[in-house]
Structures are given as C-alpha cells and as structure tokens.
C-alpha cells in the first residue's frame, strides 16, 4: 500500500494532498483502532449487547416468529366476540342506570349474581324462544396472565376439576390409572379408566415409548405414590397428587370424580401475552341455581390457584353464556377470589419499590447525558 502511495507521489508530486493519499491514512487509522486495547468496562458492554441480540433472536424459532407476525394481523382470541373488558374504555360512563329502561352501552358493565344471569338465560332458552332448557352453561374467564417476573407469564394448562355437583357433559374423558396390583388395575379399567398401568410402564413413559398426551388426567393408587414421581415433569398439571385429589386409596371413586369433573384449560393469548382465556362448561340450565353456583366457585378457585393472588385479580371478567348462544352476562366473582395474605402483598410491593428505584436511577443518568448534548446542539 505504501509503495502505491509513493508511486502516486513520484508520478505527480503535487497531488500528495489529494484524497487518494488521505484515503490511505484513514485505513491506517482504522487498523490502529483495532489494536487499541479496550477497557474491561467497554468489553463488558459489548458482550452484554451481543448477548442481548442473541437472546432476542433465540426467543422464538423461525416458524414461531412467522406465526406471531401472522397472528398480529388477526384479531386475538381475547378480542373476538364477546371481547375483553377494558375498564379504561368505560371510565367516563355512569355507574348505574337510573331509568327502568336502559341501553347496555350507555353504562359501565353491570355485574349480575349467578341466579340473575341464569334466570335471564332461562327466559331466552324457554320453549317459545330457543327451546333449549337443558343447555350447557359456559363460563368464559378473561384472565390477567402477568406474574412476579416481567418477562414470564402464567403457563397454559389443562386439567380436570372435580365439581361438587356433577352433570352430564357429553364429553369423552380419557383417564390413565396407575396401580401396582393387577387386581386393582382391572378394577380401574372396569370403573372407567382408559388404561391402567403398573411399575413397568413408567420407564417406558420416561423414555417416550408410551405417549401420555392423549390422556386428560391421571389418577394413582397410593401404593404407586413414590414410583410415579419421575413422571412429574412429563405429566405436569395432570400429575396426580393429594392436593389435586388424584392420589388415593379408592380408585373407582377417584375415576368417577374425574370423569364427571369440569375440564378447565387456561390458554395464553398468542397476540397479547398478558391476556389469557379460559372456557369451561360448569353445568346445565336445568340444574338448581345453588348447584351451579357451587360448581362455579370450585372452578374459579381451581383457576385462581395458578397465579399469586397478591398480584391482583386473576380474573378480569367472568361471563356466563350458553352453548350455543351469543348471549352473555358478566357475573360478580369477587366473593370467590382468593384473598392474599399481608405477607404476600408486602413481598410484591417490596419488589415493585426496588424496580422503581432502579428505573429512577436510569432515567436520571439518561437525562444527565442528554443535557450536554442538547446544549451542544443549541
């Protein structure tokens, strides 16, 4: 390179100050910069930046990214009929109607008791209108999926909740039973389990030779209590424990309980991850109000167990609907929501305060940086 420069100089001595010469100097300058030692601070910063970029790229796979983009163009499931309640939208509407005739959209959402909502549904499903007095009642829960960690949401789950007043739901439920004794296994199959497994199959499940995806729930006799422990990671929410009632002595009773239970699935919204939806059938219109109310209470208690109550209400709005039907009434679920203890609330608040302090520091720094720049610009 240098020889080239010399050549140009020798051929036309006066052009030394021309841009060609300047170019060469620039290259040398950049090379020198490469050799320059960087401080530990700078190194760390660079690494952080690089890692951040990589993490953002790795968060979703290629197909997932494409799916997310596609979903963003569609309406999110939470926004589809009957939509999601946003309290800010109706903040300047009056609270309660004063007239005996009122239009729904002119007031804030009116919450009804379960009995009132059911009566309104029964009127609509009466023989002279829809004639479906035994319609299944659907409970649609709009959920808030945020957790203590800002980047983590409540994970979706699939479970069966045993309800105090079982009803005919016309759905097929496949239940897997674990029992050591062959007689017990036979008993389990007789009483309605899809399949009964012993010790030997557990290894197969772990290896992946036996798929458990198709089973809605698992029950286990207590003699298998310790040997099914390795399956916890595979079965996840379907894993039988004493807490969810899947582990016990009396297999036929357990199976019966879960066969008649309510299937509760919590799904995160693919477009807005902080929202979630849960749809389940909680009873039939012909059942007495108290029974349906008891069922709803158990389902809501089971759903609310998925999130720390101190974070605020898990349920944004609960709608009572029928299948089929578009009619929906918001019900008041406050009495059934779990009450957080003071300790839990304190914990959450401490966390928040810490975050706030951090943010404040950050903003101060940025403003300090910004002011000299502004001054220079002016």
């Amino acid at each position: 390179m240098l020889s080239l420069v010399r050549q140009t100089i020798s051929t036309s001595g006066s052009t030394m100050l021309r841009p060609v010469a300047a170019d060469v100097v620039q290259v040398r300058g950049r090379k020198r910069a490469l050799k320059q030692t960087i401080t530990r601070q700078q190194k760390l910063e660079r690494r952080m930046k690089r890692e951040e970029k990589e993490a953002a790229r790795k968060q979703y796979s290629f197909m997932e990214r494409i799916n997310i983009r596609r979903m963003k163009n569609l309406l999110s499931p939470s926004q589809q009929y009957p939509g999601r309640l946003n309290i800010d939208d109706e903040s300047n509407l009056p609270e309660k109607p004063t007239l005996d005739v009122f239009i729904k959209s002119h007031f804030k959402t009116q919450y009804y008791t379960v009995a009132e909502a059911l009566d309104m549904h029964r009127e609509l499903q009466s023989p002279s209108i829809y004639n479906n007095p035994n319609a299944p009642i659907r409970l649609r829960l709009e959920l808030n999926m945020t957790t203590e960690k800002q980047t983590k949401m409540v994970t979706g789950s699939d479970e069966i909740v045993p309800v105090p007043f079982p009803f005919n739901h016309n759905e097929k439920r496949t239940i897997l039973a674990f029992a050591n004794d062959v007689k017990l296994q036979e008993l389990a199959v007789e009483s309605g389990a899809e399949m009964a497994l012993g010790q030997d199959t557990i290894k197969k499940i772990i290896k992946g030779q036996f798929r458990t995806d198709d089973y809605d729930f698992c029950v286990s006799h207590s003699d298998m209590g310790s040997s099914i422990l390795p399956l916890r990671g595979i079965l996840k929410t379907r894993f039988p424990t004493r807490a969810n009632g899947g582990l016990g002595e009396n297999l036929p009773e357990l199976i019966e309980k879960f066969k008649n239970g309510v299937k509760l699935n919590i799904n995160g919204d693919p477009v807005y991850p902080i929202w979630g939806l849960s749809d389940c059938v909680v009873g039939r219109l012909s059942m007495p109000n108290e029974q349906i109310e008891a069922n709803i209470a158990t389902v809501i208690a089971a759903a609310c167990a998925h999130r720390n109550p101190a974070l605020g209400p898990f349920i944004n709005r609960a709608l009572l609907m029928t299948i089929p039907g578009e009619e929906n009434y918001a019900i008041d679920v406050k009495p059934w929501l779990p009450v957080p203890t003071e300790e839990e609330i304190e914990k959450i608040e401490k966390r928040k305060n810490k975050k706030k302090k951090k943010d404040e520091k950050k903003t101060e720094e940025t403003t300090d940086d910004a002011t000299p720049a502004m001054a220079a610009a002016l």
Partner: protein
Amino acid sequence: MLPATHLHRLARHLNLQSSRNTWVLRRVFQPEATPPGGIQKNPNDFHDYQKYEVVEVETQKSAGPIKVILLQDVEGIGHQFDVVSVDRTLARKDLLLSKKAVYASPFDLKYYADMKTRMADELASRVRIPYELKVVGRDLQKMVVPIKVNMENEWTIDTKVVKSSLRQMGVFVAENTIFLAAKPISGPNFDIEAKLFRFYLVVNQQYTVPMLGRVTHVSVDESKQMISPTLTTPRDEELARYSIRKEFPLYSKTKDFTEDFPVFEHMKEHAPTTPQ
C-alpha cells in the same frame, strides 16, 4: 399541511411580544435565620441559596369551567335562564358565539333573573323532556327489534318474549314497561316471518317510545335457520304495508303511564307524528 396544534405552537414561538407568566418558586436550600443581633449575610454569597425549584406555573394550570347564563334550552346542558358552569372551549366556540348563552356577569345575572321571574308562567307551561329520556328514546327509535320465536313450538308474543329479544339488542327493561297490541300474535306461522309490528316502551312511566318489532323464527338447530331481511330503518311504504303509522315519542309531565294505562288507545289519539 401541519396539524392545527403545531401551527398554533409555531405562531406562539414567532410571537415576539412579551407575555406575562406567573411562576411560583421555592428555595432548594433554605438559608439559616440570622441570629438576633447578628449581621444578615448576603444570600447571593452562597451558590446553593440561588437555587430554586418550581412549585407551579400558573399559565399551565387549566382555568376550569366557566359560568354562563343560557338564553335558550340547550340539550345536555340546561334550560333557559339556568346559570350553569360549562367547559371553556364549548362556551367560547359554541354557546357564546351563537348567542345560546351569555357570560354570567353581575349585570346579566340580575337582568336575566328579572326576565325569568317575568316569564315564570310561560316557562312553567312549557313542556320540557328531560335529557336522559330524550337520549334513550332516540336510540330506541333507531332499532328494529328482531322478536325471536321458536320454529317448532307454539308461541304467542308476550312481554316476556319481547323482553328477552330486547335484551339481545342490549336493551334492558322491566317487564311492566312493555305494551303490546290487544290482538295477540301467535305461531309458528311462517307467513308472518319478518313481519313488522308496533309495540311501546314506557320509560319511567312518563315517556312512551314507539318501537318496531320484527317476527323472527329461530331454532337451536343451525341447519334450520331463517334468513330474513334485517333492514334497520324501514321505509314509509314498508310501514304502510303493515299498516303502521309513523310515530314519535310522547312525554307526560306526570307519571301517567302506569302498568294498566291503555297506552295503545292513548297513543292512537295523541302520538305526535312529527319529531319534537
């Protein structure tokens, strides 16, 4: 084209005329009180004593609502000669310019109060429909309510059926506010599918709103659905075909229209045929 707000801001920048502002400031560091007998220090000697923080900027506070006297009935705001406080922008851009209102100056307050006492009889005799009733009535009149009835079972259109159909349209009513014609409509009868009929809703026992219902046969079975025209505003000819007269809401000052009031007969004679 710049948005109006930008233009406004630009104009303010260009305006070289000085403007007056009131800033309320507070010292960041309070100087110590001079001990009795001591010599007071010059507060400007120490830099920290020259630091101030802003408590408030008077010009940035909104001035709040303004009091005006209405010269005529204005919907949603008030009646004639009422002294009301309204939003400043609304007053300046609409009420004051169009002479619907004047500033509540001491002179005008007295002047219009006198006028109000002079016109008391006339004002009392005037029929004024409360605003909230008017709003409900207007929205109700826009609707044609599909009255849902079963395809297979025997039915007669009664208040219960109408009530649940109204609820599906988002209108929540008490059962005793619905008034149907004496001659019942019953079925299933596919000849009258999509037929319009008149019924009345009485709001607060004071305001009778004529409504239109449309017979709509429904079934839970999705394969058995009727698709009838859902024209929201039927034309006059269509109304005439079903021998329905075009009517507008009727208001009564007292709560006359109780549950057993013959609303249909009353409306036949007294219903206004022009909008009020």
